[in-house]
Protein backbone atom coordinates (compact mmCIF):
# COMPACT_ATOMS: atom_id res chain seq x y z
CA UNK A 1 0.00 0.00 0.00
CA UNK A 2 2.83 2.38 0.80
CA UNK A 3 4.44 1.73 -2.54
CA UNK A 4 1.12 2.33 -4.27
CA UNK A 5 0.65 5.64 -2.49
CA UNK A 6 4.22 6.61 -3.23
CA UNK A 7 3.59 6.04 -6.90
CA UNK A 8 0.40 8.11 -6.83
CA UNK A 9 1.97 11.03 -4.99
CA UNK A 10 5.08 11.07 -7.14
CA UNK A 11 2.94 11.23 -10.23
CA UNK A 12 0.79 14.01 -8.83
CA UNK A 13 3.72 16.06 -7.63
CA UNK A 14 5.30 15.90 -11.05
CA UNK A 15 2.12 16.86 -12.81
CA UNK A 16 2.48 20.37 -14.07
CA UNK A 17 -1.23 20.75 -14.56
CA UNK A 18 -1.99 20.13 -10.90
CA UNK A 19 0.79 22.45 -9.81
CA UNK A 20 -0.40 25.08 -12.22
CA UNK A 21 -3.99 24.81 -11.03
CA UNK A 22 -2.95 25.03 -7.41
CA UNK A 23 -0.39 27.79 -7.46
CA UNK A 24 -0.34 29.76 -10.64
CA UNK A 25 -4.07 30.12 -11.25
CA UNK A 26 -5.26 31.23 -7.82
CA UNK A 27 -2.20 33.28 -6.90
CA UNK A 28 -1.59 35.04 -10.15
CA UNK A 29 -4.10 34.47 -12.83
CA UNK A 30 -7.45 34.75 -11.07
CA UNK A 31 -6.60 37.87 -9.04
CA UNK A 32 -5.22 39.55 -12.10
CA UNK A 33 -8.34 38.56 -13.96
CA UNK A 34 -10.63 39.77 -11.19
CA UNK A 35 -8.74 43.03 -10.88
CA UNK A 36 -9.04 43.54 -14.58
CA UNK A 37 -12.76 42.81 -14.55
CA UNK A 38 -13.27 45.17 -11.64
CA UNK A 39 -11.34 47.85 -13.43
CA UNK A 40 -13.34 47.40 -16.60
CA UNK A 41 -16.64 47.49 -14.73
CA UNK A 42 -15.66 50.61 -12.81
CA UNK A 43 -14.40 52.35 -15.90
CA UNK A 44 -17.58 51.43 -17.68
CA UNK A 45 -19.90 52.94 -15.08
CA UNK A 46 -17.69 55.98 -14.68
CA UNK A 47 -17.73 56.88 -18.33
CA UNK A 48 -21.43 56.20 -18.38
CA UNK A 49 -22.05 58.63 -15.61
CA UNK A 50 -19.91 61.41 -16.98
CA UNK A 51 -20.65 61.19 -20.64
CA UNK A 52 -23.05 63.69 -22.19
CA UNK A 53 -25.72 62.61 -24.61
CA UNK A 54 -28.01 64.52 -26.90
CA UNK A 55 -31.77 64.49 -26.42
CA UNK A 56 -34.30 65.85 -28.82
CA UNK A 57 -36.83 68.35 -27.56
CA UNK A 58 -40.04 69.23 -29.39
CA UNK A 59 -42.51 71.85 -28.34
CA UNK A 60 -40.86 72.31 -25.00
CA UNK A 61 -38.50 75.26 -25.17
CA UNK A 62 -38.95 75.92 -21.46
CA UNK A 63 -35.74 77.26 -19.91
CA UNK A 64 -36.41 75.43 -16.66
CA UNK A 65 -36.60 72.08 -18.46
CA UNK A 66 -33.60 72.79 -20.61
CA UNK A 67 -31.38 73.71 -17.69
CA UNK A 68 -32.58 70.71 -15.72
CA UNK A 69 -31.60 68.49 -18.63
CA UNK A 70 -28.20 70.16 -18.81
CA UNK A 71 -27.68 69.50 -15.13
CA UNK A 72 -28.07 65.80 -15.94
CA UNK A 73 -25.33 66.07 -18.54
CA UNK A 74 -27.77 65.98 -21.40
CA UNK A 75 -27.60 68.28 -24.39
CA UNK A 76 -31.05 69.37 -25.56
CA UNK A 77 -31.54 69.82 -29.29
CA UNK A 78 -34.59 71.78 -30.22
CA UNK A 79 -36.33 70.09 -33.13
CA UNK A 80 -39.60 70.85 -34.77
CA UNK A 81 -40.94 67.41 -35.40
CA UNK A 82 -41.47 64.26 -33.37
CA UNK A 83 -39.50 61.21 -34.50
CA UNK A 84 -41.09 58.40 -36.45
CA UNK A 85 -40.57 54.80 -35.41
CA UNK A 86 -36.96 55.18 -34.39
CA UNK A 87 -34.60 57.64 -32.80
CA UNK A 88 -32.60 59.86 -35.11
CA UNK A 89 -28.86 59.39 -35.23
CA UNK A 90 -26.91 60.46 -32.14
CA UNK A 91 -30.04 61.26 -30.19
CA UNK A 92 -30.69 58.97 -27.27
CA UNK A 93 -34.14 60.14 -26.20
CA UNK A 94 -36.82 62.43 -27.37
CA UNK A 95 -39.12 64.73 -25.40
CA UNK A 96 -42.40 65.85 -26.92
CA UNK A 97 -44.81 68.10 -25.03
CA UNK A 98 -48.47 67.57 -25.80
CA UNK A 99 -51.15 69.28 -23.72
CA UNK A 100 -50.38 68.38 -20.10
CA UNK A 101 -48.17 65.40 -21.00
CA UNK A 102 -44.51 65.06 -21.84
CA UNK A 103 -43.93 62.02 -24.03
CA UNK A 104 -40.44 60.62 -23.68
CA UNK A 105 -39.36 58.39 -26.53
CA UNK A 106 -36.45 56.09 -25.86
CA UNK A 107 -35.08 52.80 -27.13
CA UNK A 108 -35.62 50.13 -24.47
CA UNK A 109 -33.28 47.75 -26.26
CA UNK A 110 -30.40 50.20 -26.01
CA UNK A 111 -28.66 50.38 -22.66
CA UNK A 112 -27.47 53.94 -23.18
CA UNK A 113 -30.92 55.08 -24.21
CA UNK A 114 -32.36 53.50 -21.07
CA UNK A 115 -29.81 55.32 -18.93
CA UNK A 116 -30.63 58.58 -20.67
CA UNK A 117 -34.32 58.02 -19.99
CA UNK A 118 -33.54 57.68 -16.28
CA UNK A 119 -31.66 60.98 -16.38
CA UNK A 120 -34.54 62.64 -18.19
CA UNK A 121 -36.89 61.32 -15.52
CA UNK A 122 -34.70 62.88 -12.81
CA UNK A 123 -34.59 66.19 -14.60
CA UNK A 124 -38.35 66.31 -15.10
CA UNK A 125 -38.95 65.34 -11.48
CA UNK A 126 -36.87 68.29 -10.44
CA UNK A 127 -38.70 70.63 -12.78
CA UNK A 128 -42.00 69.48 -11.35
CA UNK A 129 -40.79 70.17 -7.83
CA UNK A 130 -39.51 73.61 -8.76
CA UNK A 131 -42.79 74.51 -10.44
CA UNK A 132 -44.72 73.49 -7.38
CA UNK A 133 -42.45 75.49 -5.10
CA UNK A 134 -42.72 78.64 -7.20
CA UNK A 135 -46.53 78.39 -7.45
CA UNK A 136 -46.81 78.02 -3.67
CA UNK A 137 -44.45 80.89 -3.09
CA UNK A 138 -46.51 83.10 -5.37
CA UNK A 139 -49.56 82.60 -3.17
CA UNK A 140 -47.33 83.15 -0.14
CA UNK A 141 -47.43 79.68 1.33
CA UNK A 142 -44.72 78.00 3.38
CA UNK A 143 -43.05 75.34 1.25
CA UNK A 144 -41.07 73.53 3.92
CA UNK A 145 -43.86 70.95 4.37
CA UNK A 146 -43.23 69.77 0.80
CA UNK A 147 -40.29 67.80 2.24
CA UNK A 148 -41.60 66.90 5.71
CA UNK A 149 -38.46 64.98 6.79
CA UNK A 150 -34.98 64.06 5.63
CA UNK A 151 -33.62 60.52 5.54
CA UNK A 152 -30.06 59.74 6.62
CA UNK A 153 -28.75 56.16 6.87
CA UNK A 154 -26.39 55.23 9.71
CA UNK A 155 -24.43 52.00 9.22
CA UNK A 156 -23.79 50.29 12.55
CA UNK A 157 -21.52 47.55 11.18
CA UNK A 158 -17.82 47.93 11.70
CA UNK A 159 -15.61 47.69 8.67
CA UNK A 160 -14.49 44.32 9.94
CA UNK A 161 -18.00 42.97 10.03
CA UNK A 162 -18.75 44.37 6.62
CA UNK A 163 -15.69 42.62 5.26
CA UNK A 164 -16.53 39.38 7.04
CA UNK A 165 -19.96 39.28 5.57
CA UNK A 166 -18.62 39.73 2.07
CA UNK A 167 -15.92 37.25 2.92
CA UNK A 168 -18.36 34.69 4.24
CA UNK A 169 -20.14 34.79 0.97
CA UNK A 170 -17.12 34.12 -1.17
CA UNK A 171 -14.87 32.15 1.17
CA UNK A 172 -17.29 29.29 1.76
CA UNK A 173 -18.07 29.26 -1.92
CA UNK A 174 -14.42 29.21 -2.95
CA UNK A 175 -13.50 26.51 -0.47
CA UNK A 176 -16.15 24.08 -1.69
CA UNK A 177 -15.40 24.88 -5.30
CA UNK A 178 -11.69 24.31 -4.85
CA UNK A 179 -12.27 21.06 -3.02
CA UNK A 180 -13.91 19.97 -6.25
CA UNK A 181 -11.30 21.42 -8.53
CA UNK A 182 -8.17 20.67 -6.50
CA UNK A 183 -8.06 16.94 -7.07
CA UNK A 184 -9.83 16.83 -10.40
CA UNK A 185 -6.82 16.64 -12.60
CA UNK A 186 -5.05 14.10 -10.44
CA UNK A 187 -8.18 11.95 -10.34
CA UNK A 188 -8.65 11.86 -14.08
CA UNK A 189 -4.98 11.31 -14.69
CA UNK A 190 -4.69 8.39 -12.34
CA UNK A 191 -7.72 6.65 -13.83
CA UNK A 192 -8.53 7.56 -17.42
CA UNK A 193 -4.93 8.62 -17.98
CA UNK A 194 -3.58 5.31 -16.70
CA UNK A 195 -6.03 3.44 -18.87
CA UNK A 196 -4.90 5.33 -21.91
CA UNK A 197 -1.25 4.63 -21.21
CA UNK A 198 -2.03 1.01 -20.34
CA UNK A 199 -0.25 1.32 -17.02
CA UNK A 200 -3.46 0.43 -15.24
CA UNK A 201 -3.40 -3.12 -16.51
CA UNK A 202 0.19 -3.56 -15.39
CA UNK A 203 -0.83 -2.43 -11.95
CA UNK A 204 -3.90 -4.67 -11.87
CA UNK A 205 -1.85 -7.68 -12.94
CA UNK A 206 0.66 -7.02 -10.20
CA UNK A 207 -1.13 -5.83 -7.09
CA UNK A 208 -2.79 -8.86 -5.50
CA UNK A 209 -5.93 -7.07 -4.39
CA UNK A 210 -7.68 -4.77 -6.82
CA UNK A 211 -9.26 -2.95 -3.91
CA UNK A 212 -5.85 -1.68 -2.80
CA UNK A 213 -5.30 -0.02 -6.16
CA UNK A 214 -8.56 1.93 -5.87
CA UNK A 215 -8.10 2.81 -2.23
CA UNK A 216 -4.66 4.24 -2.98
CA UNK A 217 -6.07 6.31 -5.79
CA UNK A 218 -8.97 7.67 -3.75
CA UNK A 219 -6.67 8.42 -0.83
CA UNK A 220 -4.15 10.19 -2.99
CA UNK A 221 -6.77 12.31 -4.72
CA UNK A 222 -8.47 13.12 -1.40
CA UNK A 223 -5.25 14.41 0.10
CA UNK A 224 -4.58 16.50 -2.96
CA UNK A 225 -8.05 18.06 -2.77
CA UNK A 226 -7.78 18.55 0.94
CA UNK A 227 -4.37 20.20 0.80
CA UNK A 228 -4.70 22.25 -2.34
CA UNK A 229 -8.14 23.75 -1.63
CA UNK A 230 -7.03 25.90 1.34
CA UNK A 231 -3.89 26.91 -0.54
CA UNK A 232 -5.96 27.97 -3.52
CA UNK A 233 -8.41 29.87 -1.35
CA UNK A 234 -5.58 31.65 0.40
CA UNK A 235 -4.04 32.49 -2.94
CA UNK A 236 -7.29 33.96 -4.14
CA UNK A 237 -7.76 36.06 -1.02
CA UNK A 238 -4.22 37.37 -1.05
CA UNK A 239 -4.56 38.05 -4.71
CA UNK A 240 -7.78 39.96 -4.21
CA UNK A 241 -6.25 42.03 -1.46
CA UNK A 242 -3.36 42.70 -3.83
CA UNK A 243 -5.70 43.65 -6.59
CA UNK A 244 -6.39 46.78 -4.58
CA UNK A 245 -9.42 48.96 -4.64
CA UNK A 246 -10.75 47.29 -7.70
CA UNK A 247 -12.12 44.70 -5.41
CA UNK A 248 -15.01 45.08 -3.07
CA UNK A 249 -13.37 44.54 0.26
CA UNK A 250 -9.90 45.80 -0.29
CA UNK A 251 -8.41 48.01 2.35
CA UNK A 252 -10.47 46.39 5.06
CA UNK A 253 -9.09 43.84 7.44
CA UNK A 254 -10.94 40.66 8.07
CA UNK A 255 -10.22 38.21 10.80
CA UNK A 256 -11.22 34.57 10.81
CA UNK A 257 -10.75 32.92 14.19
CA UNK A 258 -8.44 29.92 14.17
CA UNK A 259 -11.25 27.80 15.59
CA UNK A 260 -13.37 28.52 12.54
CA UNK A 261 -10.51 27.58 10.24
CA UNK A 262 -10.02 24.35 12.16
CA UNK A 263 -13.70 23.47 11.93
CA UNK A 264 -13.74 24.22 8.23
CA UNK A 265 -10.77 21.99 7.60
CA UNK A 266 -12.22 19.21 9.69
CA UNK A 267 -15.42 19.32 7.69
CA UNK A 268 -13.42 19.40 4.46
CA UNK A 269 -11.86 16.02 5.17
CA UNK A 270 -14.87 13.76 4.61
CA UNK A 271 -16.04 15.99 1.80
CA UNK A 272 -12.66 15.61 0.10
CA UNK A 273 -13.03 11.83 0.25
CA UNK A 274 -16.53 12.11 -1.20
CA UNK A 275 -15.39 14.32 -4.05
CA UNK A 276 -12.27 12.25 -4.72
CA UNK A 277 -14.31 9.06 -4.91
CA UNK A 278 -16.72 10.68 -7.30
CA UNK A 279 -13.91 11.94 -9.50
CA UNK A 280 -12.10 8.60 -9.47
CA UNK A 281 -15.38 6.92 -10.42
CA UNK A 282 -15.86 9.25 -13.36
CA UNK A 283 -12.26 8.79 -14.45
CA UNK A 284 -12.63 5.02 -14.28
CA UNK A 285 -15.69 5.14 -16.45
CA UNK A 286 -14.14 7.29 -19.16
CA UNK A 287 -12.10 5.68 -21.89
CA UNK A 288 -9.59 8.47 -22.17
CA UNK A 289 -8.48 11.59 -20.37
CA UNK A 290 -10.29 13.73 -22.88
CA UNK A 291 -13.50 11.84 -22.54
CA UNK A 292 -13.22 12.17 -18.78
CA UNK A 293 -12.90 15.93 -19.14
CA UNK A 294 -16.11 16.08 -21.09
CA UNK A 295 -17.90 14.30 -18.24
CA UNK A 296 -16.44 16.61 -15.68
CA UNK A 297 -17.63 19.84 -17.27
CA UNK A 298 -21.36 19.23 -16.67
CA UNK A 299 -20.57 17.83 -13.24
CA UNK A 300 -18.92 21.10 -12.31
CA UNK A 301 -21.94 23.02 -13.52
CA UNK A 302 -24.17 20.81 -11.41
CA UNK A 303 -21.92 21.24 -8.40
CA UNK A 304 -21.67 24.99 -8.71
CA UNK A 305 -25.41 25.40 -8.49
CA UNK A 306 -25.86 24.14 -4.89
CA UNK A 307 -22.66 25.92 -3.84
CA UNK A 308 -23.93 29.23 -5.12
CA UNK A 309 -27.30 28.57 -3.56
CA UNK A 310 -25.63 27.89 -0.23
CA UNK A 311 -23.72 31.14 -0.34
CA UNK A 312 -26.82 33.27 -0.87
CA UNK A 313 -27.39 35.35 2.26
CA UNK A 314 -31.16 35.14 2.40
CA UNK A 315 -31.42 31.35 2.52
CA UNK A 316 -31.44 30.02 6.06
CA UNK A 317 -29.71 26.79 6.85
CA UNK A 318 -32.21 24.61 8.67
CA UNK A 319 -32.52 21.07 10.02
CA UNK A 320 -33.08 18.70 7.14
CA UNK A 321 -30.79 20.65 4.81
CA UNK A 322 -27.78 19.09 6.49
CA UNK A 323 -28.66 16.02 4.41
CA UNK A 324 -28.22 17.73 1.05
CA UNK A 325 -24.84 16.80 -0.39
CA UNK A 326 -22.60 19.68 -1.53
CA UNK A 327 -25.21 22.25 -0.47
CA UNK A 328 -24.80 21.33 3.17
CA UNK A 329 -21.08 22.00 3.34
CA UNK A 330 -21.45 25.30 1.52
CA UNK A 331 -24.22 26.39 3.86
CA UNK A 332 -22.30 25.20 6.90
CA UNK A 333 -19.16 27.14 5.91
CA UNK A 334 -21.31 30.17 5.35
CA UNK A 335 -22.91 29.89 8.75
CA UNK A 336 -19.55 29.31 10.44
CA UNK A 337 -18.14 32.45 8.92
CA UNK A 338 -21.19 34.60 9.46
CA UNK A 339 -22.60 33.58 12.78
CA UNK A 340 -20.19 31.13 14.33
CA UNK A 341 -20.72 27.47 14.95
CA UNK A 342 -24.19 26.00 15.38
CA UNK A 343 -23.27 22.59 16.69
CA UNK A 344 -26.34 20.72 15.55
CA UNK A 345 -25.81 21.95 12.00
CA UNK A 346 -22.10 21.34 12.08
CA UNK A 347 -22.32 17.81 13.42
CA UNK A 348 -25.20 16.96 11.12
CA UNK A 349 -23.25 18.19 8.12
CA UNK A 350 -20.11 16.40 9.23
CA UNK A 351 -21.87 13.08 9.75
CA UNK A 352 -23.84 13.27 6.55
CA UNK A 353 -20.65 14.04 4.63
CA UNK A 354 -18.97 11.12 6.31
CA UNK A 355 -21.83 8.90 5.20
CA UNK A 356 -21.75 10.24 1.64
CA UNK A 357 -17.99 9.73 1.52
CA UNK A 358 -18.46 6.11 2.57
CA UNK A 359 -21.23 5.48 0.07
CA UNK A 360 -19.35 7.12 -2.77
CA UNK A 361 -16.10 5.31 -1.99
CA UNK A 362 -18.01 2.03 -1.89
CA UNK A 363 -19.58 2.79 -5.24
CA UNK A 364 -16.19 3.61 -6.76
CA UNK A 365 -14.78 0.35 -5.45
CA UNK A 366 -17.67 -1.53 -6.98
CA UNK A 367 -17.23 0.27 -10.28
CA UNK A 368 -13.58 -0.62 -10.38
CA UNK A 369 -14.35 -4.31 -9.97
CA UNK A 370 -16.54 -4.19 -13.05
CA UNK A 371 -14.25 -4.90 -15.97
CA UNK A 372 -16.91 -3.90 -18.49
CA UNK A 373 -16.66 -0.42 -16.99
CA UNK A 374 -12.92 -0.19 -16.50
CA UNK A 375 -12.18 -1.75 -19.89
CA UNK A 376 -14.92 -0.14 -21.90
CA UNK A 377 -14.17 0.34 -25.56
Amino acid at each position, binding site marked *: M*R*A*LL*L*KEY*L*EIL*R*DRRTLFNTFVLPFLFYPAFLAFMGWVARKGTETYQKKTYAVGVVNLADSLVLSALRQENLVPRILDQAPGDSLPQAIKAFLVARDDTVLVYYDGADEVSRAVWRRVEHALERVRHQRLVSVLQEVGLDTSWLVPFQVKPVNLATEERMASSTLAQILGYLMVLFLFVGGMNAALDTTAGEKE*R*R*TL*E*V*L*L*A*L*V*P*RRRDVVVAKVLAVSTVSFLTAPVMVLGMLLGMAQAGEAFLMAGKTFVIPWGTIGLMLLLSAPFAVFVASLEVAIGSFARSFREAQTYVAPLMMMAVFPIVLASLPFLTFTGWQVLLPVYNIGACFNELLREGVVWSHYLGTFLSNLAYAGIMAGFTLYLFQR*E*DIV*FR*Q
Partner: protein
Amino acid sequence: MPPGVVVRNLHKSFYDRKRGRIHAVNGISFEAQPGEIFALLGPNGAGKTTTLRILATVLRPDEGSVEIQGVDALRSPEQARRLLGYHPGDAGVYHRLTPREMVQIFGRLRGLDAPTLRRRTQEVFERLGLEDIAHRPMGKLSTGQRQKAAVARLWVMDPPVWILDEPALGLDLPTTRVVEDTLLEARNRGRTVILSTHIMEQAEYLADRIGVIHHGKIVALDTMENLRRRTGKQRLREVFLALLDLEAAA
Protein backbone atom coordinates in the same frame (compact mmCIF):
# COMPACT_ATOMS: atom_id res chain seq x y z
CA MET B 1 6.97 -29.44 -11.66
CA PRO B 2 3.60 -28.11 -12.90
CA PRO B 3 3.45 -26.67 -16.40
CA GLY B 4 4.01 -22.93 -16.55
CA VAL B 5 0.71 -22.00 -18.09
CA VAL B 6 -2.31 -24.11 -18.93
CA VAL B 7 -5.16 -22.50 -20.83
CA ARG B 8 -8.32 -24.48 -21.47
CA ASN B 9 -11.20 -23.49 -23.70
CA LEU B 10 -11.18 -19.74 -23.06
CA HIS B 11 -14.13 -17.70 -24.21
CA LYS B 12 -14.55 -13.98 -23.91
CA SER B 13 -17.02 -11.74 -25.61
CA PHE B 14 -17.60 -8.02 -25.41
CA TYR B 15 -20.70 -6.09 -26.08
CA ASP B 16 -20.33 -3.21 -28.46
CA ARG B 17 -23.24 -0.91 -29.20
CA LYS B 18 -22.43 -0.69 -32.88
CA ARG B 19 -21.05 -4.11 -33.61
CA GLY B 20 -23.17 -6.10 -31.18
CA ARG B 21 -21.62 -9.08 -29.41
CA ILE B 22 -17.97 -9.65 -30.30
CA HIS B 23 -16.40 -13.02 -29.60
CA ALA B 24 -12.89 -11.73 -29.06
CA VAL B 25 -11.71 -15.10 -27.72
CA ASN B 26 -13.58 -18.12 -28.95
CA GLY B 27 -12.36 -21.35 -27.37
CA ILE B 28 -8.60 -21.01 -26.99
CA SER B 29 -6.51 -23.76 -25.40
CA PHE B 30 -2.76 -24.18 -25.12
CA GLU B 31 0.01 -25.03 -22.68
CA ALA B 32 3.44 -23.57 -22.18
CA GLN B 33 6.22 -25.09 -20.18
CA PRO B 34 8.89 -23.48 -18.01
CA GLY B 35 11.89 -22.86 -20.20
CA GLU B 36 9.71 -22.30 -23.23
CA ILE B 37 8.72 -19.28 -25.26
CA PHE B 38 5.21 -19.53 -26.64
CA ALA B 39 4.10 -17.00 -29.22
CA LEU B 40 0.55 -16.07 -30.11
CA LEU B 41 0.78 -14.96 -33.71
CA GLY B 42 -2.18 -13.29 -35.34
CA PRO B 43 -3.47 -10.37 -37.35
CA ASN B 44 -5.08 -7.26 -35.90
CA GLY B 45 -8.18 -7.93 -33.90
CA ALA B 46 -7.43 -11.65 -33.63
CA GLY B 47 -7.84 -11.64 -29.87
CA LYS B 48 -4.20 -11.61 -28.75
CA THR B 49 -4.44 -8.76 -26.28
CA THR B 50 -7.68 -10.07 -24.84
CA THR B 51 -6.17 -13.54 -24.31
CA LEU B 52 -3.08 -12.14 -22.63
CA ARG B 53 -5.16 -9.85 -20.41
CA ILE B 54 -7.08 -12.89 -19.24
CA LEU B 55 -3.83 -14.75 -18.51
CA ALA B 56 -2.61 -11.71 -16.58
CA THR B 57 -5.81 -11.77 -14.46
CA VAL B 58 -6.77 -8.33 -15.71
CA LEU B 59 -9.91 -9.64 -17.41
CA ARG B 60 -12.09 -12.57 -16.42
CA PRO B 61 -13.08 -15.03 -19.15
CA ASP B 62 -16.72 -15.94 -19.71
CA GLU B 63 -15.74 -19.56 -19.82
CA GLY B 64 -12.66 -21.75 -19.56
CA SER B 65 -9.75 -22.00 -17.15
CA VAL B 66 -6.26 -20.62 -16.68
CA GLU B 67 -3.55 -22.15 -14.53
CA ILE B 68 -0.39 -20.26 -13.69
CA GLN B 69 2.24 -22.63 -12.26
CA GLY B 70 -0.52 -24.91 -11.06
CA VAL B 71 -2.53 -22.08 -9.49
CA ASP B 72 -6.08 -21.61 -10.72
CA ALA B 73 -5.97 -17.99 -11.84
CA LEU B 74 -9.72 -17.58 -11.77
CA ARG B 75 -10.27 -18.97 -8.29
CA SER B 76 -7.15 -17.47 -6.72
CA PRO B 77 -6.14 -14.48 -8.77
CA GLU B 78 -4.28 -12.99 -5.82
CA GLN B 79 -1.96 -15.98 -5.71
CA ALA B 80 -1.61 -16.12 -9.48
CA ARG B 81 -0.59 -12.44 -9.61
CA ARG B 82 2.41 -13.22 -7.44
CA LEU B 83 3.61 -15.66 -10.10
CA LEU B 84 3.31 -13.56 -13.23
CA GLY B 85 4.48 -10.32 -14.75
CA TYR B 86 2.70 -8.45 -17.51
CA HIS B 87 4.06 -6.07 -20.10
CA PRO B 88 1.59 -4.31 -22.39
CA GLY B 89 3.59 -3.75 -25.50
CA ASP B 90 4.39 -0.28 -26.62
CA ALA B 91 3.00 1.40 -23.53
CA GLY B 92 2.60 0.82 -19.85
CA VAL B 93 5.15 3.22 -18.41
CA TYR B 94 4.62 6.32 -16.30
CA HIS B 95 5.74 9.40 -18.11
CA ARG B 96 6.39 11.46 -15.03
CA LEU B 97 8.49 8.84 -13.29
CA THR B 98 12.06 7.92 -14.09
CA PRO B 99 12.92 4.33 -15.08
CA ARG B 100 14.62 3.87 -11.76
CA GLU B 101 11.64 5.10 -9.74
CA MET B 102 9.26 2.94 -11.68
CA VAL B 103 11.35 -0.17 -11.26
CA GLN B 104 11.81 0.55 -7.56
CA ILE B 105 8.12 1.06 -6.96
CA PHE B 106 7.08 -2.02 -8.88
CA GLY B 107 9.78 -4.07 -7.20
CA ARG B 108 8.37 -3.05 -3.86
CA LEU B 109 4.85 -3.84 -4.99
CA ARG B 110 6.12 -7.28 -5.94
CA GLY B 111 7.50 -7.59 -2.41
CA LEU B 112 11.22 -7.61 -3.11
CA ASP B 113 13.33 -6.51 -0.15
CA ALA B 114 15.33 -3.34 -0.51
CA PRO B 115 18.85 -4.80 -0.89
CA THR B 116 17.75 -7.40 -3.46
CA LEU B 117 15.84 -4.76 -5.34
CA ARG B 118 18.79 -2.41 -5.42
CA ARG B 119 21.18 -5.12 -6.55
CA ARG B 120 18.90 -6.40 -9.29
CA THR B 121 18.07 -2.94 -10.56
CA GLN B 122 21.75 -2.18 -10.82
CA GLU B 123 22.41 -5.41 -12.69
CA VAL B 124 19.51 -5.15 -15.09
CA PHE B 125 20.06 -1.47 -15.88
CA GLU B 126 23.66 -2.27 -16.71
CA ARG B 127 22.68 -5.14 -18.95
CA LEU B 128 20.09 -3.10 -20.81
CA GLY B 129 22.24 0.01 -21.02
CA LEU B 130 19.78 2.10 -19.04
CA GLU B 131 22.17 3.74 -16.57
CA ASP B 132 22.47 7.01 -18.45
CA ILE B 133 18.76 7.57 -18.59
CA ALA B 134 17.86 6.01 -15.26
CA HIS B 135 17.04 9.39 -13.76
CA ARG B 136 15.18 11.01 -16.61
CA PRO B 137 11.38 11.16 -16.66
CA MET B 138 10.14 8.59 -19.14
CA GLY B 139 8.00 11.14 -20.92
CA LYS B 140 11.24 12.57 -22.23
CA LEU B 141 12.65 9.25 -23.44
CA SER B 142 12.39 7.68 -26.88
CA THR B 143 10.01 4.81 -27.57
CA GLY B 144 12.89 2.37 -27.50
CA GLN B 145 14.22 3.64 -24.18
CA ARG B 146 10.78 3.45 -22.63
CA GLN B 147 10.34 -0.09 -23.87
CA LYS B 148 13.65 -1.04 -22.38
CA ALA B 149 12.58 0.46 -19.08
CA ALA B 150 9.39 -1.59 -19.20
CA VAL B 151 11.39 -4.73 -19.92
CA ALA B 152 13.71 -3.83 -17.06
CA ARG B 153 10.71 -3.67 -14.77
CA LEU B 154 9.73 -7.19 -15.73
CA TRP B 155 13.26 -8.47 -15.49
CA VAL B 156 13.86 -7.04 -12.03
CA MET B 157 10.64 -8.64 -10.81
CA ASP B 158 11.61 -11.80 -12.70
CA PRO B 159 8.39 -13.74 -12.11
CA PRO B 160 8.12 -17.41 -13.13
CA VAL B 161 5.67 -16.49 -15.88
CA TRP B 162 6.31 -13.58 -18.26
CA ILE B 163 3.40 -12.29 -20.31
CA LEU B 164 4.19 -9.76 -23.04
CA ASP B 165 1.81 -8.14 -25.50
CA GLU B 166 3.68 -7.21 -28.70
CA PRO B 167 6.95 -6.51 -26.93
CA ALA B 168 8.70 -5.13 -29.99
CA LEU B 169 6.01 -2.84 -31.34
CA GLY B 170 7.50 0.28 -32.83
CA LEU B 171 11.09 -0.64 -32.01
CA ASP B 172 14.11 -0.39 -34.27
CA LEU B 173 16.23 -3.42 -34.96
CA PRO B 174 18.92 -2.95 -32.29
CA THR B 175 16.36 -2.34 -29.55
CA THR B 176 14.24 -5.23 -30.76
CA ARG B 177 17.30 -7.41 -30.43
CA VAL B 178 17.95 -6.27 -26.86
CA VAL B 179 14.35 -7.08 -25.92
CA GLU B 180 14.47 -10.43 -27.68
CA ASP B 181 17.72 -11.40 -26.03
CA THR B 182 16.23 -10.60 -22.65
CA LEU B 183 13.36 -12.95 -23.38
CA LEU B 184 15.64 -15.72 -24.61
CA GLU B 185 17.67 -15.39 -21.48
CA ALA B 186 14.57 -15.53 -19.30
CA ARG B 187 13.60 -18.72 -21.05
CA ASN B 188 17.06 -20.16 -20.42
CA ARG B 189 16.61 -19.40 -16.75
CA GLY B 190 13.50 -21.57 -16.82
CA ARG B 191 10.85 -18.89 -17.07
CA THR B 192 7.67 -19.49 -19.00
CA VAL B 193 7.42 -16.73 -21.60
CA ILE B 194 4.18 -16.01 -23.43
CA LEU B 195 4.12 -13.25 -25.98
CA SER B 196 1.96 -12.01 -28.78
CA THR B 197 3.11 -10.64 -32.09
CA HIS B 198 1.95 -10.13 -35.61
CA ILE B 199 5.49 -10.31 -36.94
CA MET B 200 6.39 -13.70 -38.42
CA GLU B 201 10.13 -13.19 -38.16
CA GLN B 202 9.90 -12.44 -34.50
CA ALA B 203 7.85 -15.54 -33.82
CA GLU B 204 10.36 -17.60 -35.75
CA TYR B 205 13.37 -16.12 -34.03
CA LEU B 206 12.02 -16.37 -30.49
CA ALA B 207 9.33 -18.92 -30.12
CA ASP B 208 9.71 -22.59 -29.42
CA ARG B 209 6.10 -23.05 -30.39
CA ILE B 210 3.65 -20.81 -32.14
CA GLY B 211 -0.11 -20.62 -31.82
CA VAL B 212 -1.60 -18.93 -34.85
CA ILE B 213 -4.68 -17.06 -33.69
CA HIS B 214 -7.43 -15.75 -35.92
CA HIS B 215 -10.95 -14.60 -35.09
CA GLY B 216 -10.43 -15.65 -31.48
CA LYS B 217 -9.46 -19.24 -32.35
CA ILE B 218 -6.16 -21.03 -32.55
CA VAL B 219 -6.01 -22.24 -36.13
CA ALA B 220 -2.62 -23.93 -35.87
CA LEU B 221 -0.26 -24.71 -33.03
CA ASP B 222 3.19 -26.06 -33.66
CA THR B 223 6.87 -25.32 -34.09
CA MET B 224 7.84 -23.08 -36.97
CA GLU B 225 9.38 -26.00 -38.76
CA ASN B 226 6.23 -28.03 -38.65
CA LEU B 227 4.09 -25.10 -39.70
CA ARG B 228 6.33 -24.71 -42.76
CA ARG B 229 6.03 -28.34 -43.55
CA ARG B 230 2.28 -28.28 -43.15
CA THR B 231 1.70 -25.42 -45.51
CA GLY B 232 4.40 -26.44 -47.93
CA LYS B 233 5.57 -22.84 -48.11
CA GLN B 234 9.03 -21.48 -47.44
CA ARG B 235 8.61 -17.72 -47.13
CA LEU B 236 7.27 -16.71 -43.76
CA ARG B 237 4.54 -14.45 -44.99
CA GLU B 238 3.27 -17.16 -47.31
CA VAL B 239 3.15 -19.59 -44.40
CA PHE B 240 1.18 -17.10 -42.33
CA LEU B 241 -1.34 -16.30 -45.05
CA ALA B 242 -1.76 -19.97 -45.91
CA LEU B 243 -2.56 -20.70 -42.27
CA LEU B 244 -5.17 -17.98 -42.11
CA ASP B 245 -6.69 -19.38 -45.32
CA LEU B 246 -6.87 -22.79 -43.71
CA GLU B 247 -9.12 -21.29 -41.09
CA ALA B 248 -11.29 -19.64 -43.67
CA ALA B 249 -11.65 -22.96 -45.53
CA ALA B 250 -12.57 -24.84 -42.37
